[in-house]
């Protein structure tokens, strides 16, 4: 093997250190990229639970993080739209820390036609206080039928109730048909 070849190979591995540094600096405990299924959801949950146990996290915070993770992951399972090209069904799920709080970030492709609906839902929920959210939760629970994909239409409302925080969200264009929907929510330490 010549020196040049060794160098090229070494250079090509720089990204590992870069990713490691970024994860350290941004305190990203867990980053998952790919398709999100129920099996993946269970594995990610188990990993996050173990991480929180190891760091001696309080039970109440652990429960909140678990709760928000389930709703976020199952939202992606149920609502991610399959893009039939290089982005096919790929989603991202990240748990990070910031000054002791947990930050959960997700991203998944959605059909552009759904953007208005998602935006309206999230901006409505962001305007609500605890009392409004409780009322909306109860009325949705009582009156909504389960969707074909098995969603109760309660995920976002539940996350907002548990965290007491507002959603940050955005849509980046993938192509004519699809956008990448990104969502972030913070879970405070009590």
């Amino acid at each position, binding site marked *: 093997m010549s020196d040049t070849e060794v160098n090229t190979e070494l250079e090509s591995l720089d990204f590992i250190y870069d990713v490691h540094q970024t994860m350290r600096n941004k305190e990203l405990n867990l980053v998952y990229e790919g398709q999100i299924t129920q099996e993946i959801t269970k594995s990610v949950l188990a990993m996050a639970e173990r991480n929180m146990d190891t760091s001696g996290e309080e039970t109440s915070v652990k429960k909140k993080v678990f709760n928000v993770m389930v*709703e976020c992951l199952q939202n992606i399972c149920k609502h991610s739209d399959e893009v039939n090209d290089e982005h096919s069904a790929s989603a991202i799920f990240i748990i990070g820390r910031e000054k002791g709080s947990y930050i959960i970030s997700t991203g998944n492709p959605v059909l552009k036609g759904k953007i208005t609906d998602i935006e309206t839902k999230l901006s409505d929920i962001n305007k609500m206080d605890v009392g409004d959210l409780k009322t909306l939760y109860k009325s949705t629970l009582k009156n909504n039928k389960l969707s074909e994909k098995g969603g109760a239409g309660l995920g976002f409302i539940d996350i907002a109730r548990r965290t007491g925080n507002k959603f940050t969200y955005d849509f980046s264009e993938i192509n004519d048909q699809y956008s990448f929907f990104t969502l972030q929510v913070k879970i405070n330490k009590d």
Partner: protein
Amino acid sequence: MDKLNLEGTEDTPTIVLDSENNHFEISGRSLPEDSAEFYQPVLDWLNIYAANPNPQTHFTFKMDYFNTASSKLLLDVLSKLEDLNGDGHDVKVLWFYQEDDPDMEDAGEEYQDLIEVPFELKTFSV
């Protein structure tokens, strides 16, 4: 009638529906991939039971956690109990929550508001 006995897993609850021993209980974690499919046998069982129920039906819920899709199905289960009670049978819901778990306490209170059936909230410690 046949009992329904499902052992809990990391994403599904333990279910005991046993009319012979007068034991009715759902406990543990509930976040199945398809909650409607998972709870269908429970609803089917209750439909058959309702035709010829025991003199007393005390139904225990002892949940650690359930996701929003399951919350809809738990309401369906509670609605069956409400119907049974409405038909003049002795029905009571015993909703247990861990002492330090305000989420499961709130959930119990919310169901209590939505369902017309005798409802008792109780704490348990692990």
